[in-house]
């Protein structure tokens, strides 16, 4: 699916689709125009041909029938005007039959009931045969009864000559009057003679000619099953085709014209030309199937279709090959770009001769490649320098870590308290500090501080502070004094990253009195032996290193046995979850409240562990420092 959708978007595919739609539209327009403009003309020539075919047949059939009519007229005249005896009469009939090969037989029938006599003369090889009919049945035959009643000549419908040859014949009969006798003389023509003229045709490929009698009966047709069985009207009933009935009425009315029948039956989709015979009023029809009539136009349409397909294929092939050639450098360029993207910066950008646009694109790519190479080169240098600097920083970090006291069961060899600190710098070097040391034999000093800022500057400030404090401490008895001195130092150095928040405390190991100063730092917590938390959040000054004449206070707390002092930097409370929520003092208090027993290491690790869990997905990192001091008992 992905492959096919990619193919759908190729230039060649889009162009070929466009050309296909264009060719299709052009083909439809041309085909429609061809049909509109040429159908009439093509039909007309074919219809003229049909007309010609009909005339030809009418001429031949009328030729036979008019000859019969003339013979009958002559015979009637001879019978009525000349007083012929039997021998003369037979001689006359014999001549008429022999002279006209189309005459099948001649009947002479008297109409008087007392003189029942009808003689039928047949042509035979050795002369003339005569059948004499003496029953009255002929009185009621059409050939006798109708002309007698009409008193004029009459062409019969085809009928079976059961008393003679047994074949289908048609009769032309006329009344005659001799002295005292009235009768009918009738000339019979074998229907086959007429059928042969209609059916025998080599010029009617894809068409039919047919002959219908005065009452619409089909008397000649290629389809033998229709002859005498069907009339145009019975076919109209059978196929429920009213148009056929309409045609039948036109044909038996002696009309001439063209007729079109649409349908899906024996007369399906045909054009019919019909014209009546001049003699007996029968009608000749020439029918052509529409697909035959439109054969020439179909060839034109077929040629159009074939041409359109061929044209489309050729154009599509050209487009495909040209598009392929045009897009080849693009593909090569794309492959080269992919390789460059994969890190092979020395990949050769192919030269293009395909066209100005592609050549310009290649040039742009080459320029981009060169720029990229320059950039990579300078990046290498930068990276090298950065790595070198980083090495220095890491080294500085290691030095910094050495400044932090090691965690032991008895810090600085003191048994009255335990201390455990954790400092996790966010980077290679940290801006946080914790430290503890003995000022003199009985006084234990601890400090936690956080330089406002990060990086080397902060680390340097912190390093300075951590080395300065132990050296200053012996000269001061109060925590606030010590910090005031630190503040003065920081203000004097006047470097950018020297603002420090700090909490410094001095525990008198003999009295258990903690004297401490909070200079803008986080609160101090004391967890009592029974688990109750005491929070000392009052600060005694702002951060150090900002104002030189800083008024710094202090506070004293009497420590009880088992009290655990917990101090920390803002890396703990400002740790941020992925939902941008702070760990806060609440989080810390929760950890402390949940602790089951007092142990500095346990407490410090629990805090840091919980902070890590809380800020596991956070983007923000800060130094995390926790110092926990457990006052076990006063010095003896």
């Amino acid at each position: 699916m992905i492959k096919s959708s990619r193919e759908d978007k190729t230039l060649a595919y889009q162009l070929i689709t466009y050309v296909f739609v264009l060719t299709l539209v052009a083909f439809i327009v041309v085909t429609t125009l061809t049909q509109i403009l040429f159908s009439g003309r093509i039909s007309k020539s074919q219809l003229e041909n049909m007309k010609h075919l009909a005339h030809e047949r009418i001429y031949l059939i009328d030729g036979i029938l008019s000859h019969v009519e003339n013979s009958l007229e002559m015979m009637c005249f001879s019978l009525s005007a000349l007083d012929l005896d039997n021998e003369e009469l037979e001689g006359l009939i014999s001549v008429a039959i022999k002279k006209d090969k189309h005459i099948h037989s001649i009947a002479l029938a008297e109409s008087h009931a007392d003189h029942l006599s009808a003689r039928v003369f047949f042509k035979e090889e050795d002369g003339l045969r005569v059948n004499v009919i003496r029953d009255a049945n002929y009185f009621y035959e059409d050939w006798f009864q109708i002309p007698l009643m009409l008193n004029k000549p009459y062409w019969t419908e085809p009928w079976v000559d059961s008393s003679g040859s047994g074949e289908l014949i048609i009769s032309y009969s006329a009344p005659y009057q001799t002295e005292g006798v009235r009768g009918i003389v009738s000339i019979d023509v074998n229907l086959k003679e007429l059928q042969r003229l209609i059916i025998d045709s080599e010029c009617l490929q894809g068409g039919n000619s047919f002959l219908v009698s005065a009452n619409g009966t089909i008397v000649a047709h290629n389809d033998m099953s229709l002859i005498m069985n069907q009339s145009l009207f019975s076919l109209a009933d059978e196929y429920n085709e009213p148009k056929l009935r309409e045609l039948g009425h036109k044909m038996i009315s002696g009309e001439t014209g063209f007729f079109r029948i649409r349908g899906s039956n024996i007369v399906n989709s045909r054009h019919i030309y019909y014209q009546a015979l001049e003699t007996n009023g029968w009608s000749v029809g020439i029918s052509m199937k529409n697909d035959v009539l439109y054969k020439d136009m179909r060839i034109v349409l077929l040629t159009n279709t074939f041409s359109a397909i061929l044209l489309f294929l050729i154009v599509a092939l050209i487009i495909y090959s040209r598009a392929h050639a045009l897009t080849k450098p693009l593909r090569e360029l794309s492959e080269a770009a992919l390789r460059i993207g994969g890190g092979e910066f020395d990949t050769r950008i192919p030269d293009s001769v395909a066209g100005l646009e592609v050549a310009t694109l290649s040039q742009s790519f080459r320029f981009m490649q060169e720029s990229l190479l320059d950039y990579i080169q300078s990046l290498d240098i930068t990276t090298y320098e950065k790595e070198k600097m980083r090495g220095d920083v890491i080294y500085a970090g290691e030095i910094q870590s050495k400044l932090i006291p090691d965690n032991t069961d008895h810090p600085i060899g003191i048994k009255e308290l335990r201390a455990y600190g954790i400092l996790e710098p966010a980077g290679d070097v940290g801006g946080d500090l914790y430290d503890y040391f003995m000022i003199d034999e009985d006084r234990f000093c601890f400090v936690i501080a956080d330089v406002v800022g990060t990086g080397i500057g902060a680390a340097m400030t912190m390093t300075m502070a951590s080395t300065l404090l132990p050296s200053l401490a012996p000269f001061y008895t109060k925590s606030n004094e010590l910090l005031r001195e630190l503040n003065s130092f920081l203000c004097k150095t006047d470097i950018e990253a020297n603002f420090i928040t700090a909490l410094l405390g001095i525990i008198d190991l003999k009295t258990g009195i903690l004297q401490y100063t909070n200079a803008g730092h986080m609160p101090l917590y004391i967890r009592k032996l029974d688990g109750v938390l005491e929070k000392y959040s009052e600060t005694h000054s702002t951060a150090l290193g900002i104002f030189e004449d800083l008024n710094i206070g202090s506070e004293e707390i009497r420590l009880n046995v088992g009290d655990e002092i917990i101090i920390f930097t803002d890396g703990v409370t400002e740790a941020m979850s992925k939902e941008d929520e702070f760990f806060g003092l609440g989080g810390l208090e929760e950890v402390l409240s949940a602790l089951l027993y007092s142990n500095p290491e346990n407490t410090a690790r629990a805090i840091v562990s919980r902070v890590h869990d809380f800020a596991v997905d956070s983007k923000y990192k800060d130094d995390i420092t926790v110092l926990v001091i457990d006052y076990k008992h006063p010095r003896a």
Partner: protein
Amino acid sequence: MRFLRLTLMYLVLALLLAIPACRSKREGDYSDFYQSESAVPTNDLFVLRYRQKWHPQAQFAGVYMAMDKDFYRQYGIDLRIQPHTADSLVFSTLYNKNTDIAQMDILSGIMENKNGLKVVNIGQISQKSSQLLIGKRSRGINSIEDFNGKKIGLWRTASHYVSRIFLAKENLDMEIVPVNWSINLFTSNAIEVINVMRFNEYNQMLQAGLKEEDLFIADLSELGCNIPDDGFFVTKEFYDQHSDICKRFVSATMDGWHYAFAHPEEALDLVMTLMRKESIPASRSHQKWMFNEMRKLILLPDRIPGKLNKQDYLRAVSLLQEFYLPVKAYSFEEFCPGD
């Protein structure tokens, strides 16, 4: 087990024998429809000779269907259909014992008994008259009164009685021209009016290009001359001897008609096959028309199919006596002894 094997063997044997018999029927060999009288009769079947009124066409579809479906044999009859003969000779063939059953119209049957009860009706096909008198409007025929002074073509044989009764009843003065079965005298304008059967010649006219709207039609069944057409006749003597056979013949024939009405296409196929076999001009559409008209003549809501209605008989006798010929009137029970 032995009994079961024997039964199975006989079943297979019976099937093998039945298959060729079925096949021969389906291949469309209807030569046995018109068996010669010398054909060997099937054992235990009564050989019955039935003479049709006309050549094969849908008018007799029920008989053909009953033959095709072996209904006659099931009723114990080996039927021989005889070709039609001139109307005037039909009853003679009964008297000289060339025929056992003849199909003729009721009036001809009543007329035949004018000198004593010679023929009896054993069954009735048509329950109403199908005769029409038709005139061309273009020849000035727009009402029955217009018939006066015109030439009318009436069949020259028996079936013209209803038309003659009608002319007398309506007191119409017309020149009667005896005609055969052709309608060409009418289409060629040699006569102005002609009698036709609705089921046959009337549709032939329409299929010869005449338009219904150009014709004036006098339907005799609606003009006080509703006398049923065809019934089955036998001699009284034959009936006295074989009344049961007569009943069985009518039953089988009516079964044939009912089957045909239930399977019209099959019936038409059969009729067309028989007509082609006899080389009779045939168009399916005309035969279909005839078949449908026969249905209207046979299945009337207030008539028992296959039986002559007493009132119809009495009306026929009365009309005949009043307007055509004072024939001797036998009671319905005498004329139609089956009831």
